[in-house]
């Protein structure tokens, strides 16, 4: 009698790609809006991005049911924090909370690949990148999801100074201006859409800076 294997998986991968870039006084967070399952498209208009606090925005690719559950848990925890501390959570604080929340389910993980972007306590842009069980690091830029293998090497090449490949990074954040960073993000997604079948339809871009938060959309190839 051979060992029975599970013929049902609690997980599914809904695909998609997320990117975040930190600047001197801004942060750009972007994700495509395609949701897939296998070779099918479930919808072309699903947001993977959520604003968790005044200065923290999270983009997550992977299994969207787990992503949604994770978003709800973080939103509740943030509300509790506001009641107790009478202020919003800072981005670094939210980064730690996200890490702890992910590790809490170490033995039945959230199938979520997250990128947290925002402004730190000094108003500088910050990006935190995660694996599925909460290991995280503050970086100058990051990409997660099905298109990340296509985008990350391109960002390494374009954003030379904050690249961790120099070890340590020469600059903590990119010296690019906000407009240049947004343009770079659009270029990344246009290219990734060409080769990654799970990335496309529409690009949602969130820009966080001292004047507040802004949202932009760009059409992507629908094939």
């Amino acid at each position, binding site marked *: 009698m051979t060992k029975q294997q599970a013929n049902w998986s609690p997980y599914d991968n809904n695909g998609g790609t997320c990117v975040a870039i930190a600047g001197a006084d801004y942060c750009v967070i972007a994700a495509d809006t395609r949701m897939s399952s296998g070779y099918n498209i479930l919808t072309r208009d699903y947001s993977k991005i959520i604003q968790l606090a005044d200065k923290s925005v999270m983009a997550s690719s992977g299994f969207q049911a787990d992503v949604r559950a994770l978003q709800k848990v973080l939103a509740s925890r943030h509300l*509790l924090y506001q*009641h107790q501390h009478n202020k919003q959570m800072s981005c670094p604080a939210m980064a730690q909370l996200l890490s702890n929340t992910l590790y809490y389910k170490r033995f039945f993980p959230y199938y979520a690949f997250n990128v947290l972007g925002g402004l730190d306590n000094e108003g500088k842009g910050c990006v935190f990148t995660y694996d599925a069980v909460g290991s995280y690091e503050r970086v100058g830029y990051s990409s997660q999801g099905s298109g990340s293998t296509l985008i990350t090497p391109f960002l390494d090449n374009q954003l030379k100074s904050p690249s961790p490949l120099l070890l340590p990074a020469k600059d903590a954040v990119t010296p690019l201006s906000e407009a240049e960073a947004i343009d770079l993000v659009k270029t990344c997604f246009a290219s990734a859409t060409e080769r990654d079948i799970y990335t496309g339809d529409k690009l949602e871009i969130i820009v966080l800076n001292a004047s507040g938060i802004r949202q932009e959309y760009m059409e992507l190839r629908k094939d």
Partner: protein
Amino acid sequence: MFRNQYDTDVTTWSPAGRLFQVEYAMEAVKQGSAAIGLRSKSHVVLACVNKSNSELSSHQKKIFKVDDHIGVAISGLTADGRVLSRYMRNECINYFYSYESQLPVGRLVVQLADKAQVCTQRSWKRPYGVGLLVGGLDESGAHLYYNCPSGNYFEYQAFAIGSRSQAAKTYLERKFETFMESSRENLIKDALFALRETLQGEKLTSSTCTIAVVGVGEAFHILDQETVQALINEFEIAGEEAPADEAAAPDQADDSESSATAADQVTPSDPDVAPMDM
């Protein structure tokens, strides 16, 4: 009422059918400083007197935000009030997590009342020594409830609890019929007048009171000191008599003249009161 053989624990009935420990807990509420609530069709105002242990200490926090649509003012054992506020906040957060909508106020107060009742029927517990004025908004409109240590709760148009609350209640009883249709500003004005009644001559300034508002399109929040002081000055209630009836316009014109001269003598020495424009 006090010191008899049936008041040792909460699980002992008296021959007259009373639970003395519960009644003693209600006494604790009467000892706390005053808290007042009023509501209209669209708004609820909570107001309370700031009490501090001594001149050196800060005053106790008596109004707590529970959620965007619910707030609570307490009177009695502040520690018990804080614990219950934390419970209420958790309930609201969990409800929103499950149903993605706001917990109706009526449901929250029932849960709170049931929680209080448990403490009246366990020998190893004691009743909560705090009365709560819960003000909130839900689909059925604006509501004000009073939860007491006995586990009872009632809905009110307006109510006052704590020490010298009877003076405020007398004022509210005179005016309550107008509250339902009241505007937000008039509701706050009536809250300030009622609060002043409990001060028995002490000056009403923004440092002696705390006001909070929740309403349609307005999340629960505590008004900051400048706003409160401006309202006090506007309604000229720092030391003046409350208008006896609604035909107050000519009265207020006279009041402003006399209060201007009165304030003239007072403001130079009192740093808490914003200087009145002459």
